[in-house]
């Protein structure tokens, strides 16, 4: 939120009267109607549905008529095991993907900013999956994770390990999708961390080296604290993405086996398909509350130091 604090205030004040006489009365070179087209689209297709969702989540609804049923939808959401599973899975998925992205992204960024060969190649190849379609990635990994003749388990077998049944094992299904999500998304975390690490002045590392600090020490005492804005960004971004995640889960397991890998977003879709519009909307409200309840305090906490500067 860097508002322009360019050295212009005095200059503008000098110019303002002169410019003002030239202008017609009351018209600014920055008219408010520039907001209008964007505001109309944004209001109609984002704000109105968001507010309406709070209302319709208390109803039984078929898009044309509704009956008010109070908190029934929410009660159902927290009582029915299939729906409750989606709720807990959302937390697990968000936590697993974002923590793995933070750790792996940081390590890869440190590696890619150190002096090793083939940095350009490594960076491109790690980032490329970010641009792939989730559906395509999902299908490819569904095949690779095939429990019987998938490549991953065959590779594990050659070194004497017995791989899990991945997507068909209820205990592994959600985790498998989360791992693919990390595979696809770690490149973004890495480039964000690289931007953060590159902006740390090199003198700090040199001074630390003079004082005899090992590279591990300077990582924990220089890189980690000074890359804090990057960490904040990676955590917030991957949590927002992880909690709302739908595409990859839908392409790989459709919430299965049973409903063991359902998340809220897939529950919303299933209820919508089944025609329970009120319940589906209640799912949206629950997701909204979860995301804001986690992201808002977290981002104030993570960005605290930046504000103090």
């Amino acid at each position, binding site marked *: 939120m860097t508002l322009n604090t360019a050295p212009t205030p005095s200059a503008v004040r000098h110019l303002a009267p002169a410019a003002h006489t030239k202008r017609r009365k009351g018209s600014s070179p920055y008219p408010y109607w520039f907001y209008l087209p964007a505001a109309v689209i944004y209001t109609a297709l984002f704000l109105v*549905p968001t507010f309406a969702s709070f209302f319709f989540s208390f109803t039984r609804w078929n898009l044309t008529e509704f009956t008010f049923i109070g908190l029934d939808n929410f009660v159902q959401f927290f009582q029915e095991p299939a729906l409750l599973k989606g709720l807990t899975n959302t937390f697990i998925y968000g936590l697993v993907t974002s923590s793995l992205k933070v750790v792996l992204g940081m390590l890869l960024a440190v590696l890619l900013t150190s002096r090793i060969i083939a940095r350009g190649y490594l960076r491109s190849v790690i980032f490329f999956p970010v641009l792939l379609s989730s559906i395509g990635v999902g299908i*490819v990994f569904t095949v690779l994770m095939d429990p019987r003749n998938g490549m991953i388990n065959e590779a594990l077998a050659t070194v004497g390990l017995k791989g899990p049944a991945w997507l068909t094992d209820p205990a592994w299904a959600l985790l498998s999708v989360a791992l693919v999500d990390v595979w696809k998304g770690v490149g973004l975390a890495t480039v964000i961390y690289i931007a953060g690490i590159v902006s740390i002045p090199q003198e700090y590392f040199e001074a630390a080296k003079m004082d005899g600090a090992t590279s591990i020490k300077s990582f924990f005492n220089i890189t980690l604290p000074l890359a804090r804005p990057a960490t904040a960004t990676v955590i917030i971004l991957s949590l927002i993405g992880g909690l709302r995640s739908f595409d990859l889960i839908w392409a790989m397991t459709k919430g299965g086996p049973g409903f063991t890998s359902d998340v809220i977003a897939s529950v919303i879709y299933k209820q919508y398909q089944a025609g329970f519009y009120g319940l589906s909307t209640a799912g949206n409200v629950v997701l909204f509350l979860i995301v804001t309840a986690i992201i808002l305090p977290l981002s104030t906490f993570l960005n605290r130091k930046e504000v103090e500067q």
Partner: protein
Amino acid sequence: MITAVRRYAVGILAIAVTVVVFIVPLLFMVLTAVKDRKEAAKLEFTWPTNFQFVENFTQVLSARKFMLVTAFINSTILTVASVTILVVLAAMVAWVLQRRRSRWNGVANFLILSGLIIPPAIVPTIWVLQSIGLFKTLPGLILIEVAFGLSFCVMLFRAFIASIPKELDEAAVIDGCGPVRLFFRVIFPLLRSVIVTVIVVQSVAIFNDFQHPLYFLPGDANATVQLTLFNFQSQFTTNYNLLFMNILLITIPPFVMYLFFNRQIVAGMTAGAVKG
């Protein structure tokens, strides 16, 4: 001397790991796409004995009455139209927001952040679309993509506009420029580099979008490429070569984008992210 050895050792180790983790799955996709049906069904990472690129290619394109061709046309229209609208509208908002300080700024900033964080409410959005007659239409989906992409684009533009000196506006105003001319003739051309960034980042995102077409544009007639791929998945369970050829084809546009605009994509994604 030791550092040089380490440089190579760590580098080679990293290359080996990335080849296994990233290159092999991608190569597996390409190889399976050019195999014949029997060989592809084995799901093995082998060199195809029987190259079938052309045959698989034509078969995928002609499947279900050239569905994939229709889908590519639809996706292209969707991407081009929504990115064009996004660029113009977001730049207009960002410019006024950055230049003019008023009580609206707080509201606008709040709304932009909300747009980044809040998951869109699906069924109520369908309800709105239906009541204005745009549900299950391409224009409706275009407006949806615009609405959901605005926040991110405004943020990118605003950060960039902050670096354009305000004196430029003043000079243009003194020369008698009205707001519309000032924006479209003076400011807009100066935004070129950030416009390129917005275009590539957003077009990859919209081209790859699956969830919104699934909800707001169902039906075979106006399927997008991601939807078509998803439907092929259940249809082609025995034809892995065709399924993977489909994946390969829809991977090409983002790949070409990445080849040419590597720097802008990375810059856009990290800049937008860091500001958030």
